[in-house]
C-alpha cells in the first residue's frame, strides 16, 4: 500500500513537472517520462504484492464525512494494476522517443494528462467506496478525452466528443446502479454491498445497468462506435494504453459488480446468457469491421472490440457456472477471461507500439501507402508478426491458450446446461470459430499489406528502423507473449488463485506438469510440447532443403520480378488493403448491413435495448414483473434519449452531465444529512 501511495505521489509530481516545464519541451518530455516510469513501476509492484497477499483495506478520513476514502488491493484489482502498469511502464519508455513527433503540439499538457490518466485508472481499481470510485472514474474519462483530442484537428475533436458522450452515458448507468445499491444498504462503502442481500429484482436491475454501463467503457457491441474513432486519434503509445488498459476497466467493473459486490445476492442464469450473447456478437462484428479498415490503427481498435467480446464469453460462462452451482465451470470461465485480459493487453499493446513505430517513420496510417517495411524495419516487423500470430490464437502462443480455455469452459457449461444454454453456447462456439478465422484474415492483411511485398509509396521506400528505445518496447512485450504462451502451464495457476478468490469458490486444477487441462472434460494440451515439436519439425525440412540446395550447381536466386501474367509489374498491380475487404464483404454481407443500419438510425439501438429488456422480462418470475417493467420503461426512456447521439444534438449531452453532477451532489447531501 505504501508503494501504491508513492506511485500516486510520483504521478502527481510528474504531472506538475510536465506542465511547469511546458516551455522546455524536451525537458518536460524526459522528466515526465521518468516520473511516469517510476510511478508505473511502483504501482506494478503494489499490484504484484496485492495479487499474492491480499492487503488489508486502508481507510483515510476525508472532508466528505459520507465518503471515507477506502483503498483495497485484492487479487483482482492487483491483476488489473499489473496489466495496466506493465503497459504503462512500456508506454512511458516508448513515449521518450515517440513524443518527439509531437514537439510543438503541447508536450507539457500531454504529459500532465497522461499522468492524471494513469493515476486515475489505478485509483479506480483500488477505491472501495462509491463516491471515490465515481470521482476517479470521471477523472479517468476526462483526462483520456484530452489525450484523444491532442491532435486538435476536426476529426479528433469529433471523435473526442463522441467518446465523451458515450463515456457519460455509461457513467450515468453505473451511477444509477450504485445509488440503487446504496439506497438499499444506506452506505456508500462497497464493503456494505458485499454483505447485503439484495432481492433478485434489485440485483437484476443493478446487474443490467452495470453491465451496460461498464460495457460502454469496454466498447462492447452495441456501444462500440466511439472506440475505433477515439483510440486511433490519440498518440500511439496512449492508444496502446487505452486499448490494452483502459477498456479492461470496463471488464473489471463487470466482474467486480457481479461476483464481488453482488456476492451475497446470488446470480441469475439469464445474466450469464446475456453476457455470452453480447460477447459473441461483439467478437464477430468487431473483427468483421476491422477487416474492412485500411487505417492500421482503426483496424487494431476494432480488433479490441473483438477481444472484449472473447473476454465477455469467459465472464458469461463464469456467471453461468455460478448460476448452475458448478465451481469448476465458473473457475474455468473466469480464468479464461482474466488470462485473455492480460494476453490482449500484451499483444494489443505490442501491435499499437509496432503501428506507432511505422507511423513514426512513414507518417501515414493508411496501409495501402506502406509495404516492404520488413526489409527496412526488420525488428519491428518480426515483433509485429509474432504479435499478429498471438492475436490470431496460433498455438503455442498466449492468445491460443486463453481461447482454448474459453472453448473448454463453454463446452463444459454446454454439457452441464439445459437446451437453452446449449443453443446459446452453440451460437457462441460458432461465433468464436468464425472470429478466429476472420482474425487470421485481418492480421494477414495488417501484416502482409503493411510489411510485405513492395513499398507502395515514397515514404515507405525511405523508412528506416526506429530508435533503440522503441525497439526495446516492442521486443519486451513480444517476449511476454511468447513466455506466457509456452510457459502457460506454470502461469495459469496464478489465474486460478485470482479467479477462486473473486468467486470465493475452490479453483479447478488446470495445470499438471507441462500440460494444461480442463478437469471437467479431461481435455489436455501442452504448449511447451507443441513449441518444441513445432521447432524440431520445421527445422528438419529446412536443413534437408539447405542440403539439397548446396549440392546444386545453380545457387538460389532472389532477384526476380514477380510473374504478372507476362506484363511488366507496375506499382498499381500490387495488393492493396481494399483487396481484402471486398471478398469478405461479399461473403459476410449481413454483418456489414448491420453496421449500415446502426449508423443510419439510432432507433436500432433502442430496439436492442427493448429486446434485451423484454428478454430479461420473460426470464424473470411473475413476482418480479412489476419491478422489471419499471426498469424496462427506464431503460427505454434512456435509450430514446440516446437516439440523439447521431442526431448531433450535443447540448442535450452537456445537460446530462450537468444533471448527473447535480444528482450526485443532491444524493451526497441527502446521504450526508441522514448520517448526521
Amino acid at each position, binding site marked *: 500500500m505504501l508503494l501504491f501511495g508513492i506511485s500516486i505521489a510520483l504521478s502527481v509530481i510528474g504531472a506538475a513537472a510536465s506542465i511547469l516545464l511546458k516551455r522546455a519541451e524536451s525537458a518536460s518530455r524526459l522528466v515526465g517520462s521518468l516520473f511516469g516510469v517510476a510511478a508505473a513501476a511502483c504501482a506494478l509492484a503494489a499490484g504484484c504484492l496485492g495479487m499474492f497477499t491480499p492487503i488489508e483495506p486502508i481507510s483515510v478520513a476525508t472532508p466528505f464525512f459520507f465518503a471515507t476514502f477506502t483503498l483495497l488491493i485484492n487479487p483482482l484489482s492487483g491483476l488489473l494494476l499489473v496489466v495496466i502498469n506493465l503497459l504503462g511502464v512500456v508506454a512511458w519508455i516508448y513515449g521518450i522517443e515517440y513524443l518527439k513527433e509531437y514537439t510543438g503540439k503541447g508536450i507539457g499538457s500531454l504529459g500532465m494528462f497522461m499522468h492524471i490518466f494513469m493515476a486515475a485508472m489505478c485509483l479506480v481499481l483500488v477505491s472501495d467506496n462509491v463516491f471515490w470510485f465515481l470521482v476517479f472514474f470521471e477523472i479517468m474519462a476526462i483526462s483520456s478525452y484530452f489525450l484523444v483530442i491532442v491532435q486538435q484537428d476536426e476529426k479528433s475533436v469529433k471523435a473526442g466528443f463522441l467518446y465523451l458522450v458515450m463515456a457519460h452515458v455509461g457513467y450515468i448507468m453505473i451511477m444509477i446502479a450504485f445509488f440503487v445499491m446504496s439506497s438499499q444498504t444506506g452506505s456508500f462503502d462497497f464493503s456494505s454491498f458485499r454483505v447485503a442481500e439484495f432481492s433478485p429484482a434489485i440485483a437484476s436491475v443493478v446487474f443490467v445497468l452495470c453491465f451496460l454501463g461498464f460495457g460502454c467503457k469496454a466498447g462492447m457491441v452495441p456501444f462500440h462506435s466511439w472506440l475505433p474513432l477515439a483510440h486511433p486519434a490519440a498518440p500511439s503509445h496512449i492508444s496502446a494504453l487505452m486499448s490494452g488498459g483502459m477498456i479492461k476497466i470496463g471488464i473489471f467493473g463487470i466482474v467486480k459488480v457481479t461476483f464481488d459486490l453482488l456476492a451475497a445476492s446470488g446470480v441469475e442464469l439469464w445474466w450469464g446468457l446475456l453476457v455470452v450473447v453480447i460477447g459473441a456478437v461483439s467478437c464477430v462484428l468487431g473483427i468483421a469491421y476491422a477487416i474492412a479498415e485500411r487505417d492500421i490503427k482503426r483496424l487494431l481498435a476494432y480488433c479490441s472490440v473483438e477481444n472484449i467480446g472473447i473476454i465477455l464469453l469467459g465472464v458469461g460462462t463464469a456467471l453461468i457456472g455460478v448460476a448452475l452451482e458448478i465451481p469448476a465451470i465458473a473457475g474455468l470461465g473466469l480464468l479464461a477471461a482474466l488470462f485473455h485480459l492480460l494476453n490482449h493487453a500484451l499483444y494489443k499493446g505490442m501491435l499499437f507500439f509496432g503501428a506507432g513505430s511505422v507511423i513514426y517513420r512513414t507518417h501515414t496510417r493508411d496501409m495501402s501507402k506502406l509495404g516492404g517495411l*520488413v*526489409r527496412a524495419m526488420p525488428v519491428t516487423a518480426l515483433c509485429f508478426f509474432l504479435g499478429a*500470430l498471438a492475436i490470431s*490464437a*496460433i498455438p503455442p502462443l498466449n492468445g491460443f491458450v486463453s481461447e482454448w480455455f474459453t*472453448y*473448454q469452459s463453454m*463446452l463444459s457449461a*454446454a454439457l452441464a446446461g439445459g*437446451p437453452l444454454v*446449449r443453443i446459446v453456447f*452453440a451460437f457462441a*462456439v460458432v461465433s468464436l*470459430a*468464425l472470429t*478466429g*478465422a*476472420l482474425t*487470421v*484474415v485481418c492480421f*494477414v492483411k495488417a501484416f*502482409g*499489406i503493411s510489411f*510485405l*511485398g*513492395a513499398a507502395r509509396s515514397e515514404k515507405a521506400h525511405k523508412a528506416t528502423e526506429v530508435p533503440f528505445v522503441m525497439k526495446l518496447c516492442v521486443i519486451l512485450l513480444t517476449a511476454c507473449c511468447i513466455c506466457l504462451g509456452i510457459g502457460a502451464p506454470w502461469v495459469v495457476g496464478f489465474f486460478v488463485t485470482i479467479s477462486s478468490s473473486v468467486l470465493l469458490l475452490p479453483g479447478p486444477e488446470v495445470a499438471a506438469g507441462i500440460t494444461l487441462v*480442463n478437469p471437467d*472434460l*479431461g481435455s*489436455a494440451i*501442452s504448449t511447451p*510440447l*507443441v513449441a518444441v*515439436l*513445432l521447432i524440431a*519439425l*520445421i527445422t528438419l*525440412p*529446412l536443413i534437408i532443403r539447405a542440403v*539439397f*540446395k548446396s549440392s*546444386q550447381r*545453380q*545457387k*538460389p*536466386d*532472389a*532477384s*526476380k520480378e*514477380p*510473374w*504478372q501474367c507476362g506484363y511488366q*509489374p507496375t506499382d498499381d498491380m*500490387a495488393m492493396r488493403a481494399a*483487396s*481484402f475487404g471486398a*471478398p*469478405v464483404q*461479399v*461473403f459476410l454481407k449481413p454483418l456489414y448491413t448491420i453496421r449500415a443500419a446502426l449508423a443510419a438510425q439510432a432507433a436500432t439501438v433502442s430496439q436492442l435495448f427493448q429486446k434485451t429488456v423484454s428478454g430479461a422480462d420473460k426470464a424473470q418470475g411473475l413476482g418480479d414483473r412489476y419491478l422489471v417493467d419499471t426498469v424496462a420503461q427506464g431503460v427505454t426512456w434512456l435509450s430514446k434519449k440516446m437516439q440523439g447521439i447521431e442526431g448531433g444534438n450535443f447540448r442535450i449531452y452537456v445537460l446530462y452531465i450537468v444533471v448527473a453532477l447535480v444528482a450526485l451532489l443532491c444524493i451526497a447531501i441527502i446521504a450526508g444529512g441522514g448520517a448526521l
Partner: protein
Amino acid sequence: MILIILACLQAILLVAAAPLVSGSARWMRAKFQTRKGPPILQDYYDISKLFKRQDLHTKDSSFVHRLMPPLFIGVMMLIFMGIPVVTRFSPIPLLGDVILIIYLMVLPRLFFALSAIDTGSSYAGVGGIRELLIGVLVEPAMLLALFVTILATGTTNVGEMGMMVGSFAAVNPVAVALAGVAFACACYMELGKLPYDLAEAEQELQEGPLSEYSGPSLAYCKIALYMKQIVVVSLLVAIFIPFGSATELTVPAMALGLVLYLAKVVVIFFICTIFENVVARVRFKLFGHQTWTVVGIAALALVFFVLGI
C-alpha cells in the same frame, strides 16, 4: 515408448505416402475420363525432378516466403502425430485435442496467404486471400459439427471421441451421424478438389499462391498440400469412422487397424474422385452459399441433439 515410436512412424509414413495418394487420385481421374493418364508414381518423379532445380525468389520476398514450405510440412507432421490412425486412441494424447488441431491447421493457412502477398505478385495474392476465405467459410461449419459431437461424447480428445463413436456409446447417435455428414462436407471443401478447386491446373485457388515457388521449395509445397489432404481425411476417419482400428497394442490388432485404415482412405478418395468427375467448377462467389448448407446440416444435428433424438 511404443506410442511415441508409432507417432513418429505415422509422421514419416505421411510424408512418404503423400505423393502416392495424390498420384493414385490422378490415375483414377484419368481412368474415369478413359485416358491412359500418368503412372501412379508420377508425383514422386515430379518431386524428385523439382529437388534438382534452382530455387528462385522474387526480389521483394522476405523470410515468410522462404519459411512457408518447411513450416507447412512440419505442422502437418505435428498434427498427424496426434491423430489416431491404426489405433483407436491418439498416439500422443497431448496432441490429440480437437481444438488444438483445428487451430494448428490455421498456422500453415496463415503462412500460405502471407507468402502469396510476400512475393509482390498480385496474381498470387488474390489466390492467397481466397484460400483464407475458404477457412472463414469452412471453419464455423466444422466447429459446429464438432460441438455436437463433443457434447454427445463428452470429450474433446480425438481418440476418445472416436472411442465413444466406435463403440456406439455416444448419446444421440443420429445427431452424431448427421454431424459426421456435415463434418465430411466441410472436409471435402478443405481438400481443394472440384467443384471448389482444381489443384492440377495451377491457376486456381490452392496452387495459385504457389506461382512464385520453384525448385525444392515448390516440391515441399506440393508434398505439404498432399499431406494436408491425408490429414483432413484421417481426422474424419478418426472421429466418425473409427470402426476396426486397434483398441490395444497387439500386432494382429494393429495390422488389422492399418489395413482397415488404408481401405477407408482409399474408399474416401475414390468417392472424392467420383465427385470430382461429375461436377463442374463453381464460381468462387457461390462458395459461400454451399458452406451455408453445411452450416445448416450441422445446425440440424444440433437441433436433433438438443431434442434428444
